[in-house]
């Protein structure tokens, strides 16, 4: 592994893994990546240069192993050499407090009464004593070793059945010996010659043909030794991954691990590393260690762990997926907030610009409208300066005329920073979204063969996360009903519908779709005209003096209220249409519902974007707007807030009052169901608004974070009090994939297209904001490059590159696309 590989892998890992670990801590396989991180350290033969710098190395190893939990053979002698010490350390940190929460959970569940103690059936041996067909096994798997397959093929092949994969320990060891062999061959061109015994030719040895012994035990011992040998020669990450994935007991795995590590500590190679790359290795290691420890700290924060466990214990993984999606969105917004806060808000807050007009007085209405007192603050685009912020040193203040000596050192080019920050934030979000989408796809995409539905239902429908007794009973009932239905379907083969019945069904479907599309079109038309009416209203009021500023500001809330009302009521119409259509298959019903809701939201957002970018931004003078970007930012703030308020109202009326109504008045015991798909679409809609608004309101992610935090607790309480789990089977991994895809494609793509369009073609306001005198926002970057070129003519190639690559976005997108494709392929 040379330095370039290391740096390349470091870049990949640093960029993709840490954010993934933060954003999707629940995802499968992130442990593999964390081990990859550690592997990169192990591979640099950390031991070697440490042994040469003994004092420093001792300090570094102790420091790192205590603080940063390095796992390399060196710190086997590290600080935590007894469990006792570990426990003592943890108990000082208040370790048992988590145990207390879990005890609380246990007490909650115990209230239902204890189950009787189960009977004990006759014991069985843990591993069978089957006879192995060694030659068969080897001949079969040798063909796998013979060629070098791509990693995807190997993955598929390794999960395919093989005739002789048995359950005995010997079989497992043999299987894993072959897997480690494949892995070694994949990682290197061939195993090193020194690993072979002298007496055998390398080519035959490679194929692992066993010794001439026919004794099964001896053969097993041989295999075991060779497995240990292979394990020892793998990198640390691969070894850990292999060990974890072996279906052996922990005691045996630890035995294998001990043997492998013993051999490794004996076989330290004494190869020298060239002098100058040692420093590079050291820096890379230190950086990666600190980054990794920061990540494990974040992971240990365990946001909402007990709450999520309660929800999943009662409702299962379906409802849990909604809350996990919320958590994911929270981390996206946190990232956005940190980036914009650090690079935009903080510098501008520290260097406030001179205020042109007096700030209006603070009334309480600002929290709703976002205008008034807030309009000339760091919250909106209009506050940001269009010059380079410099730290000025004032010599003589007492005189009144102070000479500002401008220091050249601490200068901060605000327009460039604004442009680059927004661009980079969107780019990184895009990468993360595409990565998580591809991973989700990889997990959930399966050929949907219809002939094993019953078997799948029997073996895969039990949700092990559900632990509450009543929920378990409910789940059993549901499974029973589904099995009965499936059985009925399979037994009584579908009665052929007559042509008349088919026609009537088609008509019903057509009618329902017509209602939905008609309703949708009517609402969009209504919004279009209402927004135009409000626009004209604004024109009129702006010409005459404003009689009542409060009323004026309140009238700005009219459009958001109308849109949120439509968002709330129209899905009810869609539900009605679906009830009329009466789909047989619940998954088709869910997809149709998602499609209709999506159509509604996309069309609403389209009309609104046209209103803001096409009407308001095109001619801001008509409504006497000094700063149309701040106005659009305020509109987005209002929309976000109204969305939140209406979600609250919906939770209140839709869930709480409906439950009370159905219990008291209708006297039914059934509580309303939690509609997962609709709630997730609401979250996606809110997130689209947030992404649209980042350019105009850098603090909008903070508002979104607050909103998501509140929403989590409100939804959680409402679900626990008022709802029951969905009765129909909910295919979690497929739905999660769909939702991540929806978040990426219509939502993020639409938002980034709008933002790109704004930056590329719309003229910024002339009197406010960081892009004041420019023709388009994009020119900020161009101007900076031109200035650089003026200052330093040597950088003219950079200007040339910039003008060709960045100004022609085609190359940028193609390059990004190719790069992303390669990285995704290597991770799939």
């Amino acid at each position: 592994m040379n330095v370039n590989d290391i740096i390349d892998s470091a870049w990949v890992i640093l960029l993709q893994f840490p954010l993934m670990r933060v954003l999707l801590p629940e995802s499968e396989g992130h442990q593999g990546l964390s081990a990859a991180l550690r592997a990169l350290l192990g591979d640099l033969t950390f031991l070697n240069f440490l042994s040469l710098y003994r004092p420093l190395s001792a300090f570094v190893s102790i420091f790192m192993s205590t603080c940063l939990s390095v796992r390399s053979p060196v710190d086997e002698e590290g600080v935590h050499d007894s469990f006792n010490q570990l426990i003592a350390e943890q108990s000082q940190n208040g370790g048992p407090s988590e145990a207390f929460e879990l005890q609380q959970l246990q007490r909650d569940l115990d209230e239902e009464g204890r189950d009787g103690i189960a009977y004990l059936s006759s014991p069985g041996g843990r591993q069978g004593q089957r006879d192995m067909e060694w030659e068969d096994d080897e001949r079969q798997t040798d063909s796998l070793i013979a060629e070098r397959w791509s990693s995807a093929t190997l993955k598929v092949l390794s999960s395919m059945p093989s005739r002789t994969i048995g359950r005995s320990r010997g079989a497992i060891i043999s299987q894993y010996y072959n897997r480690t062999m494949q892995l070694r061959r994949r990682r290197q061109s061939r195993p090193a010659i020194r690993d072979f015994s002298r007496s055998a030719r390398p080519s035959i040895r490679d194929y692992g043909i066993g010794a001439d012994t026919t004794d099964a035990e001896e053969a097993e011992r041989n295999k075991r030794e060779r497995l240990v040998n292979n394990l020892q020669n793998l990198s640390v990450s691969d070894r850990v991954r292999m060990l974890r994935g072996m279906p052996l007991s922990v005691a045996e795995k630890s035995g294998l691990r001990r043997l492998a590590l013993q051999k490794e500590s004996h076989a330290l190679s004494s190869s020298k590393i060239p002098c100058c790359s040692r420093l590079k290795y050291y820096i890379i290691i230190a950086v990666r260690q600190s980054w990794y420890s920061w990540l494990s700290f974040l992971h240990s924060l365990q946001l909402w762990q007990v709450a999520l466990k309660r929800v999943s214990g009662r409702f299962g993984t379906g409802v849990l997926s909604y809350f996990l999606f919320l958590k994911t969105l929270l981390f996206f917004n946190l990232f956005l907030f940190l980036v914009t806060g650090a690079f935009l808000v903080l510098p501008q807050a520290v260097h406030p610009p001179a205020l042109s007009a007096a700030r209006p007085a603070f009334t309480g209405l600002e929290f709703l409208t976002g205008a008034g007192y807030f309009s000339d603050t760091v919250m909106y685009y209009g506050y940001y300066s269009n010059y380079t912020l410099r730290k000025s040193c004032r010599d003589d203040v007492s005189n009144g005329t102070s000479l500002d000596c401008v220091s050249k050192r601490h200068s901060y080019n605000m327009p460039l920073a604004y442009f680059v920050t927004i661009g980079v934030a969107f780019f990184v979000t895009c990468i993360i979204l595409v990565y998580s989408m591809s991973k989700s796809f990889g997990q959930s995409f399966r050929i949907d063969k219809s002939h094993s539905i019953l078997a799948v239902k029997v073996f895969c429908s039990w949700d092990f996360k559900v632990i509450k007794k009543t929920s378990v009973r409910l789940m059993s009932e549901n499974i029973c009903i589904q099995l009965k239905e499936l059985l009925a379907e399979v037994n009584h083969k579908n009665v052929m519908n007559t042509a008349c019945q088919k026609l009537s069904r088609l008509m019903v479907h057509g009618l329902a779709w017509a209602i939905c599309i008609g309703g949708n079109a009517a609402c969009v038309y209504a919004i279009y005209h209402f927004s135009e009416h409000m626009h004209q209203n604004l024109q009129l009021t702006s010409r005459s003096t404003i009689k009542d500023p409060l009323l004026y500001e309140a009238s700005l809330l009219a459009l958001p209220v109308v849109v949120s009302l439509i968002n709330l009521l129209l899905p009810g119409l869609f539900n009605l249409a679906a009830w009329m259509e009466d789909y047989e298959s619940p998954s088709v019903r869910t997809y149709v519902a998602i499609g209709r809701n999506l159509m509604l939201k996309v069309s609403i957002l389209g009309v609104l974007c046209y209103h803001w970018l096409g009407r308001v931004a095109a001619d801001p003078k008509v409504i006497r707007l000094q700063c149309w970007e701040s106005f659009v930012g305020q509109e987005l703030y209002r929309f976000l807030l109204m969305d939140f308020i209406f979600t609250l109202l919906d939770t209140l009326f839709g869930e709480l009052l409906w439950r009370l109504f159905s219990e008291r008045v209708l006297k039914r015991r059934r509580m309303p169901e939690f509609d997962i798909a609709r709630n997730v679409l609401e979250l996606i809609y809110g997130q689209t608004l947030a992404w649209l608004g980042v350019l105009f309101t850098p603090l909008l992610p903070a508002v979104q974070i607050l909103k998501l935090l509140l929403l989590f607790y409100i939804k959680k309480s409402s679900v626990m009090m008022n709802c029951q789990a969905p009765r129909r089977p909910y295919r979690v991994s497929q739905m999660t994939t769909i939702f991540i895809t929806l978040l990426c494609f219509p939502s993020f793509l639409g938002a980034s297209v709008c933002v790109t369009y704004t930056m590329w073609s719309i003229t910024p306001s002339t009197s406010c904001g960081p892009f004041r005198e420019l023709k388009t926002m994009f020119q900020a970057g161009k101007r900076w490059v031109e200035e650089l070129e003026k200052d330093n003519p040597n950088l003219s190639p950079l200007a040339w590159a910039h003008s060709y690559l960045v100004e022609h976005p085609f190359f940028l997108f193609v390059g990004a696309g190719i790069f992303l494709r390669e990285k995704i392929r290597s991770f799939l």
Partner: protein
Amino acid sequence: MISLYLQDCTYFTRKEILRLFYRYRDLAPQLVPLDYTNHPDVKLPYELIGSMPELKDNPFRQRIAEVFSEDGEGNMTLDDFLDMFSVLSEMAPRDLKAYYAFKIYDFNNDDFICKSDLEKTLNKLTRNELTEDEVRMVCEKVIDEADLDNDGRLSLEDFQHMIVRAPEFLR
């Protein structure tokens, strides 16, 4: 030192291992010592394991305990306990879970899921709500669908073949 080998053999971080150790100890504080450096041979009986909230109401709790315990009777050492939770956690890959799921559903431990195993599975799943006829029909259909080598029972490879096609295999 102990936790290092556990971290490499299970899918847990050190903190999680510690938390699980506390929970193991809480089941029987007088039996489980705090100091594990000498690898004490402590086994908790099945009744205690089966009383944990995660397993209490699970119809398969006994099979789970039997599969993961060393002696096959459900009495678990700390290693077995951690192994069980590691495989049941979200971080374990699908193949590993499929392997253990097969063992759990194999009630008579003959390395095949035969008809009687299937019947027992179904009864546990549905709490004996299905009629005898329905149980029989479902078993027949399942073996029909999933049995690839046509020996009337499901072997591990049949099971894995079916699981590979089902993205909803959660556990």
